[in-house]
């Protein structure tokens, strides 16, 4: 169980390899990477700044990860979330879960990102191609996705 909140980028291969390394009980690992898109809600996006609530962020991510371990039989899990300035194509977040069986790995990974999306205190300010800065609004779809897991 690992949670990291950091400004710098992470190396996907290093992180995922470390997650399963040396644990031969693992039969499947599911991971999700969120990236900055160059378009959102119909506007071109030149970049964004991710603000967060230091202290509470780590606490919430740890709670979300612990909840995944309560719900599924996991051998390993990982949440890395970046903050600060990001450009299109940059990685924002990595969540991963490893289990003896693939269904648990998929469900836990999906759960991690769905809950993170509605419970971890991060806020995105997009720099639009128009020059404007726009605070991204929470999506109803994210609330619905999270409520699947209630």
């Amino acid at each position: 169980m690992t949670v990291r909140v950091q400004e710098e980028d992470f190396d996907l291969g290093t992180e995922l390899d470390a997650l399963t390394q040396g644990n031969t009980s693992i039969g499947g690992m599911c991971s999700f990477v969120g990236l900055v898109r160059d378009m959102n809600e119909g506007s071109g996006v030149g970049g964004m700044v991710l603000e967060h609530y230091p202290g509470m962020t780590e606490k919430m991510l740890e709670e979300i990860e612990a909840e995944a371990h309560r719900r599924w039989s996991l051998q390993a899990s990982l949440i890395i979330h970046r903050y600060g300035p990001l450009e299109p194509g940059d990685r924002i977040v990595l969540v991963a879960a490893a289990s003896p069986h693939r269904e648990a790995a998929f469900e836990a990974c999906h759960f991690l990102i769905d809950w993170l999306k509605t419970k971890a205190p991060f806020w995105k300010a997009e720099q639009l191609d128009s020059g404007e800065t726009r605070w991204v609004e929470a999506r109803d779809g994210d609330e619905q996705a999270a409520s699947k897991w209630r």
Partner: protein
Amino acid sequence: MKVLYFAWLRQKIGTGEEQIDPPDTVATAGQLIDWLVTRGPGYATAFKDARAVKIAVNQTFGDRETPIAANDEVAFFPPVTGG
């Protein structure tokens, strides 16, 4: 009491963090909001759409009824948009 503001609440209020000493009648997060909006137009604007504002007390999600005390850390912010 330490109060934190994030994202557009921070921008509207003009600060991300302040140390305040509300009157003794302020015993819940909702009462704190009601008192804050009397402090200036930035606060009034920030809390205008109260339904859009999330509350955390000591880094745990709460609501308008959550009790607050002198040494608490109270945070106000919009719905989260990370991930």
